[in-house]
């Protein structure tokens, strides 16, 4: 099954002959705007995120100071190998709650629009959740082109900007939103060439090009409470943490305890600024922590020397390595402290890692819920959630979208969106802030839009708009 799926994908991907991976995942940006300058934000957020926000600003303040003071940091010893390798526990009393495939029809959706982006597959589509002003803006990646659109209330799209990479061999697999410290929306995208493009959408200019990955980049996410930080998952078996503000490569996650094959997906924790997830072709999901290296993150904000001189650190061991799937894991996402992950096995799993406090190396995975998604057995199919993680949308190979109510037990299928015209595989979905609009991008280069029937307003809290 895995194999076929892969074949499927590669055959579909006519774009990059060498690169067999079309990324199409839904990037819902969960990242929120907190531009880092936001010391003004009286965020009631979690302590963690507050800390995160303050630190950058403080480091900015210290920019004028002699650098040595910043550099005097004690060298951090590399962590010992204490990675936990966990497998799910099976048997009576450990069953997962499986959702029924009968739609509850809690919400009704209908197709309202379709836009043909091009002839190449659209691999990524993502709303901007970082800034309330832009909640109705989404971005897509199609071949060497990136576009931003506004979702209008009447079911229409308005094309805002379109960027074209001069390297026509580029095929963008992923796109994400970020912010500079002034709150300007940044579009971050990368693909087959491995170069991460950071575009300032306010000025419509390329802001940075981050070179460093040794292979194509499969997914980029930005840190919700600290949106200058992005992580990128790459074919080179590593995950890299960047500061797009300064263009610095802060940390590299890979090596002895790292992924053994391409990394396909990453996701920042919603509230814990230190942790993130990664998943990849080695069938594992790993949880990483940058807590011990946080000072380098702080340092990256105030770094004024050449970016190449930054003391980039290697993080070789994740906190945890979960072996719950038996095939490529191509999408994973935090749901609070639980994890959603998806392999090419026609279902999404919700699980929690249970480790012993006294011995974090031991424990098991507790699979809590399963969300079946028929005909979803090719890889590089990504799901997305609305802002509050209430509902999840995932497309399948036949062009259907399954909308799950993700935080109920047992899971409820809200709706199955199908339209006879949507025939090709849906690589990624995007769910609007409140879940009333669902976008899907397909292998054949289209963007489809579903709106909730009888929903009074447009996809976004439009009251805030003007």
């Amino acid at each position, binding site marked *: 099954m*895995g194999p076929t799926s892969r074949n499927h994908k590669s055959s579909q991907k006519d774009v990059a002959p060498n690169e067999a991976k079309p990324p199409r995942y839904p990037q819902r940006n969960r990242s929120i705007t*907190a531009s880092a300058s936001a010391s003004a934000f009286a965020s009631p*957020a979690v302590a963690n995120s507050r800390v995160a926000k303050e630190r950058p600003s403080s480091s900015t303040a210290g920019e004028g100071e002699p650098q040595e003071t910043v550099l005097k940091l004690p060298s951090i010893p590399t962590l010992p190998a204490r990675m936990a390798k966990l497998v799910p526990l099976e048997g009576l009393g450990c069953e997962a709650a499986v959702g029924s495939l009968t739609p509850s029809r809690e919400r009704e959706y209908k197709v309202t629009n379709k836009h043909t982006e091009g002839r190449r597959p659209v691999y990524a589509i993502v709303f901007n959740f*970082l800034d309330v002003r832009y909640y109705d803006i989404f971005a897509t990646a199609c071949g060497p082109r990136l576009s931003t659109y506004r979702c*209008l209330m009447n*079911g*229409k799209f308005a094309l805002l900007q379109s960027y074209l990479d001069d390297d026509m061999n580029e095929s963008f697999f992923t796109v994400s939103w970020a912010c500079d410290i002034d709150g300007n929306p940044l579009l971050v995208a990368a693909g087959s060439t491995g170069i991460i493009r950071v575009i300032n959408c306010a000025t419509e200019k390329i802001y940075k090009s981050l070179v460093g990955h040794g292979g194509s980049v499969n997914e980029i996410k930005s840190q919700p409470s600290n949106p200058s930080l992005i992580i990128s998952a790459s074919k080179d078996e590593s995950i890299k943490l960047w500061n797009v503000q300064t263009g610095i490569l802060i940390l590299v996650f890979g090596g002895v305890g790292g992924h*053994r094959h391409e990394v396909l997906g990453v996701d920042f924790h*919603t509230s814990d600024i230190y942790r993130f997830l990664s998943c990849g072709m080695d069938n594992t999901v790993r949880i990483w922590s940058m807590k011990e290296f946080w000072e380098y993150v702080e340092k990256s904000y105030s770094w004024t020397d050449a970016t190449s001189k930054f003391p980039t650190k290697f993080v070789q061991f994740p906190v945890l390595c979960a072996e719950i799937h038996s095939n490529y894991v191509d999408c994973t996402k935090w749901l609070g402290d639980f994890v959603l992950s998806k392999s090419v096995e026609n279902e999404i799993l919700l699980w929690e890692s249970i480790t012993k406090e006294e011995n974090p190396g031991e424990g098991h995975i507790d699979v809590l819920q399963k969300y079946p998604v028929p005909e979803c057995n090719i890889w590089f199919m990504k799901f997305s959630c609305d802002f*509050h993680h209430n509902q999840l949308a995932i497309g399948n190979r036949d062009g259907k979208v399954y909308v799950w109510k993700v935080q109920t037990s047992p899971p409820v299928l809200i709706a199955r969106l199908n339209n006879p015209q949507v025939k090709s595989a849906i690589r990624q979905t995007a769910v609007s802030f409140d879940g009333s609009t669902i976008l899907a991008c397909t292998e054949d280069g289209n963007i489809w839009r579903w709106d909730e029937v009888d929903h009074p307003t447009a996809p976004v809290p439009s009251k805030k708009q003007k």
Partner: protein
Amino acid sequence: MASSSSKASDSSSQRPKRPDQGPSGKDAAGLVALHGKLAQLKRQVQSTRLAAIKERVEANRKALQVHTCALFDVAAAAEVASRGAEGGNALSRGAAEGHRRFVGWDSASGPGERELVHVQEENLVAGTLVLSSSGGSGASHRTVVQLVKLPVVDKIPPYTTWIFLDKNQRMADDQSVGRRRIYYDPIVNEALICSESDDDVPEPEEEKHVFTEGEDQLIWKATQDHGLSREVLNVLCQFVDATPSEIEERSEVLFEKYEKQSQSSYKTDLQLFLDKTMDVALDSFDNLFCRRCLVFDCRLHGCSQNLVFPSEKQPYGHELDENKRPCGDQCYLRRREVYQDTCNDDRNACTTYNMDSRSSSLKVSATILSESEDSNRDEDNIKSTSIVETSRSKITNSEYADKSVTPPPGDASETENVSPDMPLRTLGRRKISKHASKSNDHSPDKRQKIYSSPFPFAMSVLNKQSVPEIGETCPDSIESAVDQLPSLDDPNKKISTKDMCAGSTTNTTENTLRDNNNNLFISNKEHSISHWSALERDLYLKGIEIFGKNSCLIARNLLSGLKTCMEVASYMYNNGAAMAKRPLSGKSILGDFAEAEQGYMEQDLVARTRICRRKGRARKLKYTWKSAGHPTVRKRIGDGKQWYTQYNPCGCQQMCGKDCACVENGTCCEKYCGCSKSCKNRFRGCHCAKSQCRSRQCPCFAASRECDPDVCRNCWVSCGDGSLGEPLARGDGYQCGNMKLLLKQQQRILLGKSDVAGWGAFIKNPVNRNDYLGEYTGELISHREADKRGKIYDRANSSFLFDLNEQYVLDAYRKGDKLKFANHSSNPNCYAKVMLVAGDHRVGIYAKDRIEASEELFYDYRYGPDQAPAWARRPEGSKKDEASVSHHRAHKVAR
């Protein structure tokens, strides 16, 4: 829940007739009932589980909501902050225009109208995107959007994340290419499974079923109600995914867990570790410490190395330093002083320590005593007080111990020899009293002396205890005890001597004696022996090996906090005497303890000579290249040379014979082998004058070995300027030129974009011909693993495999150094050479000609004729990455 539990109680109420029938009496109805009950219990467990999930998900949802709301506030704050400001919405301008740039369906026409056509054209020349729509409804419009160009940025050549290694590492167990690894082949469009045949499948360790709580409940319930018969097990099997035997096992575990929970007999941590023998305690040391690299957790030689003990051990002296000072209050030297007087007569009576006959037990004592004659007599008086004091506490201790200890089975000879060891005169006297009960001649005196001991406390205790043994004489002597206090030395000496004689004679009647041995002294001794835990004993033996019979050093270095010097000393003499007697007295005479001791010694010997350690980790060694069934073609890769053979130290104790592992493998014995230096199979090193060693005249160089300062006569290095009296560091002309790998004297290598293909390695400073540049490091993997990886690498067209020797291949794919990026050339400026450095094969890269600064490095990969990738076969093309797929594994080989 309530209902289910009531049902459960219902069913249990039906049961009472049956329970006593036992498993065999179960009838079908019982099983049916059991089945029903279990099914119900299972449902109950499942519903509990679902409820628990629901609860957890809900809790998680609430927590998450707090976070997302917080994030929303953050997102909204940006908007608030920008409100009122000009251009607050960076996208507003575009958005305003955007209203004219509708894409997709016109909402008026509604979805699904086929006539509506939207076309989006990219005009790359003009850099515009033209959106046009035309449809049946007529309203067609064109929109032109300016495309923003993203300028081309220089790419870097592809690579996979790798870790720097400064020395080779053996592959970790979990780094093997899994047998289930599937990968997609872009060319053939098929999925390939990388494991070849079924022989990959082994891993015979079946996964054991892990029982969940729910399953435990089922099993417990079933076994409680119906016992553990075959039928019950079968029923359980339907509910639990495990084999009957596993269930049975589990039920016993559960039984113990539930029934015996209360009887928790736990030991303190200290006792726990003292209970282990040293072999066990040292297990991790033996497993983790690399004796070749002198580091723990050596990644090169791995864990579970064969333990090789060199046959030539330093002999240790039996005698102690003459002028040794006591090491502390509890030093046996103090006891010696006490005995000084008593020894006078026996001085020189015996000079050897070995004893061959039972009659020599006296000599043992004498010898021991004579040892103490050297100590300074003058100190006696000063110290005796403190000794006595310590002795008192000892006595009390032993008193307590005695209450619980049953009469010791220890043999008389031991008793005999112990007596001189004990630091106290009082002890000696007490011992005498024991014999007194046997031989009446001595008894009066002895008893008196016992009670003349200056310690009322000890006396009273003694009194209570020894009443049964010593008899009615006690009360009398108590009275006189205090009076006789001062008179100690002379009588004591005589009596103890006599007593020894008596003791040795009483050996013959040991049985009776043993019964009577239950006096204070014996119990004291028994006490101390019983507290010599296995670990302490082992440590003691090690100490003997290391320090000789020096109880001070042993106690201080190995038994610190566990045993005092005196205890060690007394143990030592006990033990020595017991062992010395062993040959004659036979087992019947030996105490249990001595027997155990002997057993241990034998076992220890066995342990040292065993070749394979049992730990599972050694499994990785199983893959030898011979068993892997390699194509014979591979042997030719060696470019006409025979394969290097991996060296493993042999454990031969003397000279290596035919069955020496090294001889069998065809390797030389090295300094790590157990055999003696005169072993004929040893590599003797070179005697090159001036330590040049850079030509084939040097035997080391000729054998592709680096010189070893431990082995070669003139090859050595030094540091410092000689001011501390060390030999002067020699200049370059004198320093051995054949130790560069060992000393890591490499050149600075730079990594950059190759002029030829992908990445390349460059040299920073100019070097001369045959200069050593650096080492090609990587993971050491078996040939079998290399074959698996090679398949994958060949698909990706970049292989960093390097044949090292017949057991290992170096793989620099994930771990290595910058030299792995040096490209292939048929006209190279470097060459690779496998050198044997301190028993390990390592790959050095050497300059073939003079190389100028910042030149790119190339060497000939020396692929086997039919293994070279296509590009390597072309005369000029030395490009690694543009090669077409080779269907053989590409290996680099040294010359």
